[in-house]
């Protein structure tokens, strides 16, 4: 079992590493122009010229997958950063202040959580408009409440530990205790949450793009590539298979990495061995 866990962690890290490298390269260089239309080359199956074939406008699939990776990773990372920042601010202040402030903030937070995340994002997109920035803001707001919940819960449980009382007895101020003892101990659960959230956001972004509510064509993302492949599913299998495979492998990597992190960082799991 130990080997199984270790292997999963290694596979997960490898997949995420490759993803970031490909996205990094895709942002500055691709074999062909991902937007370069060439009707002469449309729906070419995988071949030496186009390793993974071309789409209905003759655009190179490898180039579009790389550019798509760059877009998806950029959107997901930005969104996660926004959600985590907002979530930490709300969660920490609320968890540490307690009292009426905590109660009001958490009721509002819970009301936001009463929407399924994707529905909230859809509603916000209706307002913000379907584009890259709309997605980032909509998903950022949609997922921040979950972060706030986790952070607040962690802060509350850490507050009960004896080393917080010890810090007070020493004469440290509340702010110092917060920064020096509470926050660093929130890092472990936050790391686990951030990893899973990267997966949720990536999936949500692809879903929205698939629905046509994400990054508008012709700019490629894995989601909108799948959406435009749907009519050609009978003739050009590779168009429907490849972007989905990319998303699935990425999500698998994130899930494996998240599990491994949870095993490593969750104190309950650590105590068990």
């Amino acid at each position, binding site marked *: 079992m130990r080997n199984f866990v270790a292997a999963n962690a290694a596979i997960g890290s490898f997949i995420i590493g490759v993803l970031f490298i490909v996205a990094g390269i895709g942002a500055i260089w691709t074999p062909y122009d991902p937007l370069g239309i060439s009707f002469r080359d449309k729906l070419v199956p995988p071949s030496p010229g186009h390793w993974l074939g071309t789409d209905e406008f003759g655009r190179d699939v490898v180039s579009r997958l790389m550019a798509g990776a760059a877009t998806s990773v950029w959107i997901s990372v930005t969104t996660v950063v926004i959600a985590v920042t907002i979530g930490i601010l709300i969660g920490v202040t609320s968890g540490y202040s307690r009292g009426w402030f905590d109660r009001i903030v958490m009721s509002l937070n819970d009301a936001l959580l009463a929407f*399924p995340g994707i529905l909230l994002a859809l509603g916000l997109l209706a307002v913000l408009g379907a584009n890259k920035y709309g997605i980032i803001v909509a998903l950022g707001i949609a997922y921040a409440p979950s972060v706030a919940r986790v952070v607040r819960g962690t802060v509350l449980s850490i507050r009960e530990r004896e080393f917080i009382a010890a810090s007070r007895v020493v004469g440290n101020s509340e702010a110092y205790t917060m920064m020096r003892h509470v926050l660093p101990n929130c890092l472990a659960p936050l790391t686990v949450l951030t990893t899973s959230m990267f997966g949720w956001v990536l*999936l949500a972004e692809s*879903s929205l793009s698939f629905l*046509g509510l994400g990054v508008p064509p012709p700019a490629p993302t894995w989601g909108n590539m799948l959406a435009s492949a749907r009519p050609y599913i009978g003739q050009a299998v590779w168009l429907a298979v490849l972007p989905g495979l990319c998303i699935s492998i990425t999500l698998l990597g994130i899930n494996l990495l998240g599990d491994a992190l949870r095993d490593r960082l969750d104190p309950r799991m650590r105590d068990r061995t």
Partner: protein
Amino acid sequence: MLRFILARIAMALPTLLIVTVSVFLLIRMVPGDPAALMLGDNADPASIAMLHAKLGLDKPLPTQFAVWFGNLLTGDLGSSIASGQQVLPLVWSRFLISAQVVVAAVLLACAAAVPAGVFAAWRQNGKLDIGCVSIATLLMSIPTFWLGLLLLLFLGLKLRWLPVVGYVGIAEDPWRGTLYLIMPILTLFLHEMGVILRMARASTLEVMRLDYITHARAKGLTEGAVLWRHAFKNSFGPTWTLIGLVLGNLLGGVAVVETVFTIPGIGRLLVDAIFGRDYPVIQGCMLMVALVYVVVNLLVDLCYPLFDPRVTIE
């Protein structure tokens, strides 16, 4: 017990109110004039003013809310700008279509995943356990829209076992209606099975370490009795909560599967309304889904004491 139920319902009311207010505010947050947006750039001022009056946009915000909320309580959600249909019956009929897919998928997923998860936990670290966890993680990682496309490709196009796209109401033609529903249900079923299995396994493992499990074994009970009578019931709480969340989330995210299989459900209705800037329909769909989500979670919470008698009102 009655007090517990009433208190829990009372706790859900503010949430519902905030949900309603946010849905109402949504349409007011649109940059620019929604009426102008809906009617397009070339609309004449008269028809814009007419739409304003119809939507109540010419009155102050609190009045607008009061009127809108009053109408909401009588079941009047306005009518669709695109088709002129009444919103409530439209949303309701589409919701029922989505609900049959989602509910069937979740029920099947529970039936398969919960026993599998408990079993995997029992065989912790054994071959079967590792197999179950691996498959579950894999299933969880495949997005539904791709899984749907793959099923479409193999079951529909290659093997020709099932009709590819379209929808027929079960009431009209039970046989064909069912055929059309198989693939969407299968798609959601496979995905959610992974999620539920992992949760069922994790919470069972949590319980299996406790003394009362050893106590049950020390009484001479069979492993089956230990597992089902003692471990299962105590570990089911977190899974039960998760099932409620999954059900609600699916209703929000079902648009993707409905797009793949061209099913006229509430998700597709919402997405089309967003495309068409059909604000009354957007509001109706969001209210409907959020309401169902809150109610489902309320019911889940109300059932919780069945698994854990220690739970009462906070």
